């Protein structure tokens, strides 16, 4: 019998029952909750007279709507405030293992606070009413984003109805070039395979390049698996995973820690496991990436050019390139390095962890944000990240360079709070989606790594950071 993939192992260890058509009831170990996708689910429970099955699986925070300025004033927008207050009410009525409300010192983006508190552990099934739940797969968890009906279903039953996904292995081998980061890897992958390649699949990332990444980098990769269409991203457990988790508030302790480590070591695909699809990527050939269009697959290397619709033979592709360039206010064949920015955003569940801030700070140290850039902002992923950065003096480096240093939250990744682009404004953003209007109606988003965003803030346009000395 052939070996099992990591996905298969995680699946098998969580099946409560299977139906004849392959639908299974999967047990859910960790339920992460935030204010936007949960109110209707709690309301549904109430209307049906149901209670949560297991409140100690719940970890909640408010992140999408929270402001990043003037926390002492509270939430000014009454509609946002109602949503955040509703979360407070629901958690105090129903209970949770941990709740990090607005202004709590451990509040932050749900996909940052889960791992940093040890709420995300290898071998778990993790769900959240947010597509970027795939992030947690970096810890060899089966982590999937769900809709609000499923949030209610998990609350009421501790289970999720799922069909088994196909397996997809992406192996990145070789060694990265200097200043090329996890973000560039995942953007390059999406550029190569497309935004729908992972549909119906769970993607496992492997290979020397992935092994050499920090846990933060691995989270960036798995975070954007959903941008390749895959509901789940996965990376095997290794020593880095275990070291990261040791001593975190919710990590196992004492004898449990020893037993857990033993179990976690089995959480990797067997050597003879067979995947439905395999893609090999040469990590050494990956250059810094910049998206030019309105889908993450519309991406170029920094030394590249915007595409020419005339070069597209397929009429649908031609039309979509044309529409994207038009929306982005770009003409064909423009060098990427000639694209000037109005704003720069360093943050989001993709790139707001301590390592991301360190990489960006290295680039801006001793420099100034270009005069032509109206606003450059850093939004740490959580209160803990913020405090760690301040301990290391990163906040001073950013502030001295002219960056705004903000309170944690989702912020301008999706612009549900006051941080948004005005129509026509162009932004270098470390977030995950460059869809039309994502960062504000009419706003234009270019997805990049933290170092690329930092360098763009200083230059006022994109630059190839491989050319820069970091010293």
């Amino acid at each position, binding site marked *: 019998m052939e070996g099992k993939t990591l996905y298969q192992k995680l699946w098998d260890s969580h099946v*409560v*029952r299977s139906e004849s058509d392959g*639908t299974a*009831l999967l*047990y859910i*170990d960790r339920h992460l909750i935030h204010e*936007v*996708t949960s*109110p*209707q689910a709690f309301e549904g429970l109430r209307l*049906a007279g*149901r209670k949560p099955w297991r409140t*100690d699986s719940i970890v909640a925070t408010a992140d*999408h*709507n929270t402001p990043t300025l003037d926390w002492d004033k509270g939430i000014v*927008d009454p*509609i946002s405030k*109602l*949503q955040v207050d*509703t979360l407070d009410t629901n958690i105090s009525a129903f209970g949770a293992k941990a709740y990090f409300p607005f202004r709590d010192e451990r509040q932050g983006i749900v996909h940052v606070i889960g791992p940093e508190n040890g709420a995300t*552990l290898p071998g*778990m099934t993790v769900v959240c009413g*947010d*597509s970027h739940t795939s992030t947690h797969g970096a810890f060899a968890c089966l982590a999937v*984003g*769900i*809709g*609000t*009906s*499923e949030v209610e*279903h998990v609350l*009421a*039953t*501790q*289970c999720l*109805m799922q*069909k088994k996904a196909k397996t997809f292995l992406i192996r990145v081998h070789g060694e990265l070039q200097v200043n090329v980061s996890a973000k560039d890897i995942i953007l390059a992958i999406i550029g190569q395979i497309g*935004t*729908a390649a992972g*549909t119906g699949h769970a993607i496992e990332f492997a290979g020397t390049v992935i092994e050499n990444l920090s846990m933060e980098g691995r989270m960036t990769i798995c975070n954007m698996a959903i941008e390749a*269409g895959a*509901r789940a991203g996965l990376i095997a457990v290794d020593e880095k995973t275990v070291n990261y988790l040791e001593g975190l508030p919710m990590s*196992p302790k004492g004898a*449990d*820690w020893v*037993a*857990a480590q033993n179990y976690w070591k089995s959480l990797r695909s067997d050597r003879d496991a067979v995947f439905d699809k395999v893609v090999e990527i040469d990590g050494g050939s990956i250059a810094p990436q910049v998206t030019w269009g309105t*889908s993450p697959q519309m991406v170029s290397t920094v030394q590249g050019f915007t595409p020419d619709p005339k070069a597209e033979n397929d009429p*649908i592709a031609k039309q*979509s390139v044309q*529409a994207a360039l038009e929306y982005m206010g770009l003409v064909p064949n423009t060098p990427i390095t000639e694209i000037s920015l109005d704003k720069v955003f360093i943050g989001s569940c993709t790139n707001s962890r301590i390592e991301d801030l360190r990489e960006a700070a290295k680039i801006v140290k001793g420099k100034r944000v270009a005069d032509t850039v109206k606003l450059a902002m850093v939004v740490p992923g959580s209160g803990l990240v913020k405090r760690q950065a301040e301990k290391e003096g990163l906040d001073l480096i950013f502030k001295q360079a002219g960056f705004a240093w903000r309170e944690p939250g989702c912020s301008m990744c*999706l*612009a*549900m709070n006051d941080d948004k682009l005005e129509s026509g404004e162009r932004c270098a953003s470390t977030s995950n*989606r460059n*869809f*039309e*209007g994502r960062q504000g*109606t*009419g706003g234009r988003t270019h997805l990049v790594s933290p170092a690329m965003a930092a360098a763009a803030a200083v230059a006022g346009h994109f630059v190839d950071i491989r050319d820069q000395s970091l010293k």
Partner: protein
Amino acid sequence: MEKFSRLKSVVAPLDRSNVDTDAIIPKQFLKSIKRTGFGKNLFDAWRYLDPGEPGVDPEEREVNPDFVLNRKVYAKARILLSRENFGCGSSREHAPWALIDYGFKVIIAPSFADIFYNNSLKNGLLPIVLPATVVDEMFKAVFLKEGYEVLVDLNEKFVQTAENIKHRFEIDDFRRDCLLRGLDDIGLTLSHAEEIKRFESRQKSQQPWLYK
């Protein structure tokens, strides 16, 4: 959930691939704590010329005459036709809620994003996958003939065109049954409560740290 079995309707063409959930319902409308009322802001940035904010009366908005759904012939369309990877992006269930609230019952496309597909079925919105070539033919027919209609039969799993061609589609038997009967998943799962408890006690003995 409302039952669905058979529907004949005008087909509204949304000729784009990768229609994302931010386009279906922009983020400023996600602040609601209700499941209803999203229809007036469906495709907001495409449908109106002025920027949309929550609470604004649609009667006072500036309608984009070029957007396909604003054409009179599609006012009663219950079937939306689109291209690859429909519903990609965010997991917001507000996307199917908005489509349903607006009046759509069926979306036909060559492929759907996984989360959107699931969310739709849980709300009585039927996503139908047909081959790209068939979808392309349908687009041509819709553009050729104003008010082009098709018939969707969930029981028999086919879409019948005005030319009487039947295109079969696939859907899980379980999902189809839920839609046909308007069944609630939660009640069904809770009928297996004993099995869930057995799973928990087994897991608790193997991985006790998950319960501390």
